[in-house]
């Protein structure tokens, strides 16, 4: 039996349709028998006793079947629209909340009671010192030579500013980008710089506000070279030795 015919039989049995057409009755011999079964089902439902309160769902089913039939209500999907609106509202709320959370977390931390960090922009450098226009002592030099021009500052103000602003979070070692050693594999550039700065960075990070000394120390990345009195056998030059820690080095001046 086709489903379409069976639906029509149900509609007829439950009162939604008056009668089957002659062609429908004649088309299927078993249609009459099936219609009879559905009518018996309807009568059985009507004879069911009243349901207790806790079985309201069954009662509602029965009432629906008996009084409203099986006719589908093709009304506007208010419920689906409600669900959609609720979902959209939830999505918009989630978006704004997450944006605010990101904004809050990205805000620099506020250190209460900390003294302001002094920017080390005006650090007197070797360039400043060599910028003196004083004439050399040997003024009798017959040849006029170009006087030394000031050297560029070892660290630009912006770099100093970065160091100062980031000086308290222990990231000083990462910011040192001006090593002054050879690039030999035994002594990588970053190695010496890191070793020189590490204890200072550790000391700086241990305090809430890094002391000016620690900030300045982080900008001093110069390694030192010791010139040994012996001569290199291969080149005939003096033998140089890079020094990673200057604590024991005697320097005259």
């Amino acid at each position: 039996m086709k489903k379409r015919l069976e639906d029509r039989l149900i509609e007829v049995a439950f009162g939604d349709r008056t009668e089957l057409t002659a062609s429908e009755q004649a088309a299927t011999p078993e249609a009459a028998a099936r219609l009879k079964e559905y009518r018996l089902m309807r009568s059985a439902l009507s004879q069911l006793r009243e349901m207790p309160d806790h079985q309201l769902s069954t009662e509602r089913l029965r009432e629906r079947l008996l009084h409203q039939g099986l006719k589908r209500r093709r009304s506007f999907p208010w419920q689906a629209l409600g669900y959609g609106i609720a979902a959209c509202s939830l999505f918009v709320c989630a978006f704004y909340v997450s944006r605010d959370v990101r904004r809050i977390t990205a805000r620099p931390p506020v250190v209460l009671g900390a003294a302001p960090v002094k920017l080390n922009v005006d650090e007197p450098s070797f360039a400043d010192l060599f910028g003196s226009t004083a004439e050399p002592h040997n003024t009798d030099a017959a040849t006029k030579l170009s006087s030394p021009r000031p050297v560029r500052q070892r660290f630009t103000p912006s770099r100093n500013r970065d160091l100062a602003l980031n000086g308290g979070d222990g990231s000083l070692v990462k910011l040192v980008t001006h090593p002054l050693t050879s690039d030999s594999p035994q002594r990588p550039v970053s190695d010496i710089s890191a070793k020189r700065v590490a204890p200072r960075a550790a000391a700086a990070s241990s305090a809430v506000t890094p002391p000016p000394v620690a900030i300045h120390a982080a900008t001093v990345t110069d390694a030192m070279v010791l010139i040994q009195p012996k001569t290199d056998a291969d080149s005939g030059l003096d033998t140089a030795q890079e020094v990673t820690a200057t604590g024991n080095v005697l320097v005259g001046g």
Partner: protein
Amino acid sequence: MAAKLALNAVVFATAVSGDALAASQLSQAEQQVWRSLQPSILIISQAGVSRGSAACIRSGGFYLAHQNSVRKGPIDGVTFEGQTYPMHLVANDGPTGLVLLQVDGDRVPRCTPIRIADEDHARQGTLLAVLSSGPVRADIGHPNIVATYAATNQSVLLNEIRFAAPPQMLTGALLFDDRGNLVGVLGATLPKAHNIVKLPLNSKPNVVGAESAPGGGRSAGIENMKLRAVRPLGQSQVGPAALNVAYAISPLLLNRVVAGFLSPTHDVLHPALGAVCTDDLVNGVSQGVVIRKINRGSGAAKAGLQVGDIILNIEGAEIHDVVDYARAMLAQEVGHRVTLAIRRGTQTIPIEAVVGRVTDPARLKQELNQSGA
């Protein structure tokens, strides 16, 4: 003598050639610089062996070289055209190791005095290193490194120079920038075990060659000698090869030395207070330099500085460690008054001192004796 020198150069170039040296040419600009420099350079030769190079700093036969290029005995200066001039040692600057040579007699080569590079320009671009066997490209690895002589505790400023030339060629090499200005003179190198910079194997060779050589010029076959060149490692395209690292006196000190050599007394005045210091370490952090020794009669002694004083500031420059101390002192001028902030006990007091000069007569005398002067 010139023929002997050329022969030595050819033999040496042949010995060091092969896989380590490859063929190429200087760029046109570099060749132009090299041609302009040749009249101002002499190759130092002793007993037929080329030991280094010397740069003319004054017409009349005055040349600047490094003491490592000079041994005891007669000194000859050989032009790139093969002419030989006997020379003698005039002055020796102990702190930098530079020497002043002068051509004997009235017959002196015609030369244009070289100019000293200014520091800013010296730090840019590649350099032309004039070895005893010809030019090779090089570059400054790190500028103005504070170096201290272990024997005398005196400090100088050095530029770290890197190039792929064999170490046998480095002695007394002169360094010029792309304008032909003198940038430095090689004086020290790392020990062999530490003196190798390995390059990535997939990098492309970038080589230059010697256009000519002393004693025979292009006809002596030296033009076939090829040397690798280097670029800064951060953007290096050379290799695979081992780079040598050497140190040259910074132009900042070159100016001082040349001015001193050209003075009537040929005396170079390096500033010094006469105080030998070490780091003042507090919890592993150096916050000044503590005076360990004060030379008798020095500016520090006259100013009342004492052993144990901690120097915190010199002329407004904060002193945190011996590197700062060395830089601050190298920037001073002999005879100037400087104000120091020192900590003595719990007090911080200002002290004025007169900057004296570096004196190391024993070392100077020893070096002069060794060089046969």
